[in-house]
């Protein structure tokens, strides 16, 4: 007989599942919603950590209105104004931005960091997307394991939206001590087969990053267990302790815990 997993435990857990079926059914969907909020909150906190003053805008009835898809106009949702000396940024959720390929394509980024005054705060007759030149960086959030195909998907977004990052370059006005490289934020770990690809990206000088188990990291971050943002600014100055729920991609360099989940490449 197992010491911990006996029939009594299994029966009690199944009763818990049955009793709370409706509430538990909402857990995955709510995870998606909260991840959208978390990604936005994380980026805002990142800029605050980097010395920016943050002001929330278009807050209605005391509530931040988070845009969660391509539909809808930006003036109906909240955004954040960030200011540090002469550096000014706006942070928007699900921001539509024109492709960097001059093909008229429009991409909706989960979190976009843009120049101020580009995205309309009041209703206008026609709005499609922010000019690509106005975009500093962005974050995408997924509740998926970082499989090789997800990496390819993410790099494809960078290729179409801000391709200079793939060449190790940055957009004009990019602040190396504050603006983060395009980030893929995930609620899961990094698949073992992705590590060799990430290593290859690193060798090729691609500027992008993967932050896995974002929910755990944010929880630890907001608990005050570390003071720097989980988002890395280029240069690797901010290295993070491992989260409580580790990545299962393999052993880390120090051999103490599974591989470091924040991979800068």
């Amino acid at each position, binding site marked *: 007989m*197992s*010491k*911990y*997993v*006996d029939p*009594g*435990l*299994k029966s*009690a*857990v*199944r009763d*818990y*599942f049955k009793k*709370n*079926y409706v*509430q*538990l*059914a*909402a*857990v*995955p969907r*709510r*995870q998606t*919603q*909260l991840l*959208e*909020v*978390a990604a936005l*909150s994380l980026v*805002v*906190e990142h800029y*605050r950590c980097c010395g920016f003053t943050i*002001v*929330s805008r278009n807050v209605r009835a*005391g*509530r*931040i*209105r*988070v845009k*969660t898809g391509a539909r809808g106009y930006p003036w109906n949702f*909240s955004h*954040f104004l960030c200011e540090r000396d002469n550096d000014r940024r706006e942070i928007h959720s699900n921001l539509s931005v024109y492709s960097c390929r001059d093909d008229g394509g429009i991409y909706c980024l989960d979190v976009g960091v843009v120049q101020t005054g580009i995205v309309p705060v009041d209703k206008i007759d026609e709005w499609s997307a922010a000019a690509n030149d106005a975009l500093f960086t962005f974050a995408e959030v997924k509740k998926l*394991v970082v499989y090789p195909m997800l990496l390819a998907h993410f790099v494809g977004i960078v290729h179409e939206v801000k391709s200079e990052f793939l060449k190790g370059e940055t957009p004009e006005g990019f602040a190396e001590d504050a603006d983060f490289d395009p980030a893929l934020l995930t609620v899961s770990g990094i698949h073992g087969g992705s590590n060799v690809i990430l290593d290859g990206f690193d060798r090729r000088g691609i500027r992008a990053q993967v932050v896995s188990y974002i*929910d*755990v990291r*944010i*929880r630890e971050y*907001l*608990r005050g267990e570390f003071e720097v943002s989980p988002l890395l600014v280029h240069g690797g100055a901010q290295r993070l302790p*491992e989260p*409580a*729920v*580790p990545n*299962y991609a*393999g*052993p880390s360099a120090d*051999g*103490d*815990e*599974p591989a470091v989940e924040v991979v800068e490449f």
Partner: protein
Amino acid sequence: MDASSRLGSFLEPLPPALAEQLADYADYVLDSLDAICERAHVSPSLVDLNDLAVLAALRRLWSYLESQRWLLTNSLAGLKTLDSEVSGFTVGDTVFTPSSRPAMEIADLESQLRDLLARHNIEFLVTKASLTELISTLAADR
């Protein structure tokens, strides 16, 4: 044998989407057992894989609930530091405030699960910081 096989019907009462995610996590843990055991300095043969699959699934459910509560309360707290007038946020049609129904549901699910784990003396499942510690505990008590 993968985690789903080891879990058998254990997750069947759950909504399929959630059951799949918990089973996926259990698979990760089982796939990584050798590496985790190496760090824990224990032999994998000391770990009951059926038990581990169940405990991993429960651990992932706990982390979902706990992280959702943290995401909700702390994202809100962080945003409130920027604007004291902020009392919550809306995502689509869902309103998240400390007293909103989603917040209450998450807290209730978490509380029930915590009580259940305590009643069955497996609170260590969520208090152990890492899987290495969890595996060490399971192996030591075998």
